[in-house]
């Protein structure tokens, strides 16, 4: 038993340490957001870097998700004569789950890694120290623009994924499954309710936090040279992915409860 107790204790201690660190960073972000100068230009720059430059990746992923889901549901349900349910199932799954989760995972890999390595390199080359030494705040200049840009772009990218994946599904439905395109389109419109959009987009706001805070935290905590930049980047992506996947369950429950209540 004691063989497992020591590593488990160390793991729990490390996890608490990281959670505490991220909590403190989040507190500082909230505090600095409302005090002193706000760098709108830096936020806009980051929206471009995070949003526009992620678009090709998101388009490819979204198309693929829509097409694969339509094909798999179609082939599976065909055996039971349920092929006509494909548009409903694909649409609901994309809007509520696949759209936000896949977009967030893609962004965690591309943007989370980018943020962690960029900030980590800035720490190693003393640029973060220079920001402080020149009388400015790295939280305001580096962290807040990236967190806000993630909060703005992720829901927009999820919207793009929802649309493109649905079109991808429709294409496969019409060509491979021989479902009438007009029927598919009407089913999409009748299935997609406001609650589906709210659930998906709402979750993406949480996911944006799950991506940006660990990325900034691990980047800022690089201490031992360039070697640690690589491990900080890996940790940022792993933690963000875990938070997205685990958080998705609880957020799904939360939105179901809210929907019932409303």
């Amino acid at each position, binding site marked *: 038993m004691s063989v497992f107790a020591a590593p488990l204790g160390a793991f729990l201690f490390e996890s608490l340490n990281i959670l505490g660190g991220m909590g403190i960073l989040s507190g500082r972000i909230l505090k600095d957001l409302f005090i002193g100068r706000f760098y709108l230009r830096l936020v806009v720059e980051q929206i471009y870097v995070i949003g526009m430059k992620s678009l090709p990746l998101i388009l490819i992923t979204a198309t693929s998700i829509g097409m694969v889901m339509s094909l798999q549901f179609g082939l599976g349900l065909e055996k039971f004569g349920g092929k006509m349910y494909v548009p409903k199932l694909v649409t609901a799954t994309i809007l509520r789950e696949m759209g936000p989760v896949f977009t967030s995972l893609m962004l965690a890999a591309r943007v989370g890694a980018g943020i962690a390595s960029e900030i980590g390199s800035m720490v190693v080359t*003393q640029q973060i*120290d220079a920001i*402080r*030494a*020149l009388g400015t705040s790295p939280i305001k200049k580096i962290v807040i623009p990236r967190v806000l840009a993630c909060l703005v772009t992720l829901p927009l990218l999820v919207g793009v994924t929802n649309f493109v994946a649905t079109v991808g599904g429709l294409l496969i439905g019409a060509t491979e499954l021989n479902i009438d395109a007009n029927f598919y389109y009407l089913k999409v419109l009748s299935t997609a309710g406001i609650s589906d959009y709210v659930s998906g987009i709402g979750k993406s706001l949480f996911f944006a936090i799950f991506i940006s805070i660990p990325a900034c935290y691990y980047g800022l905590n690089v201490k031992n040279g360039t070697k640690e930049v690589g491990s900080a980047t890996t940790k940022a992506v792993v933690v963000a992915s875990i938070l997205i996947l685990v958080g998705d369950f609880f957020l799904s429950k939360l939105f179901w409860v809210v929907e019932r209540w409303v």
Partner: protein
Amino acid sequence: MGMIEVEDFKKSFGSKQVHKGVSFYVKTGECLGLIGGSGAGKSVILRSLIGLERPDSGKIVIDGTEVTALKERELVEVRKKVAYVFQGGALFDSMTVFENLAYPLREHTQLSETEIRRKILHQLEEFGLGGNENLLPASLSGGMQKRVGLARAMMMSPEVVLYDEPTAGLDPYNTKKIQEHILDLKRRGVTSILVTHDMPTAFAVCDKLAILLNGRIEAQGTMEQLEKDSKGLIAKFINGEAA
């Protein structure tokens, strides 16, 4: 007593106590050379002077303000008048030389872009860097990067300058250039601390030296005083017999 006062500065890293009670002062307009072996903690003292590090105990006072008692936000005013010249320049690598120099002016002054441009071009000429304003730091040589770092630190006309090994790794020409800039700033009445292993530079620009040894300032004073009273520590340090 002085523009910079450090009193009983103690700092540990893990279980290792690096500073065991460092005390020294620097008068207005004076240049103090802080020398000692690698890992003695010279840069940590320098970083602590502007609050980039916090001592475990002790007091740091700059121009009457107790830096150690200030919060991060309150340190901004201190950092406006105390410039830090980083060993590697610490230039923002995503910004051009011009933008690097414009950074403190855009942050802390209300100057128009025309005025900022005029000041920067003048500064670059002064530091022998004219015509390089549109280059990224990666395109500059090590010596030029250090000079740009120095020029950036001087943009706010600081009262105090902290140099962290400004001549490390430089050729004799660039070393001489940096020495000239430090001497020029001294003539203008700027107070400074120079952390260095480069003894010729220390002798050329410093009014007095402090030797950091075993976590304490073992000797400090003018060159003449040290040669007389420091039990030959300067000679031992230069000859590699003390670190």
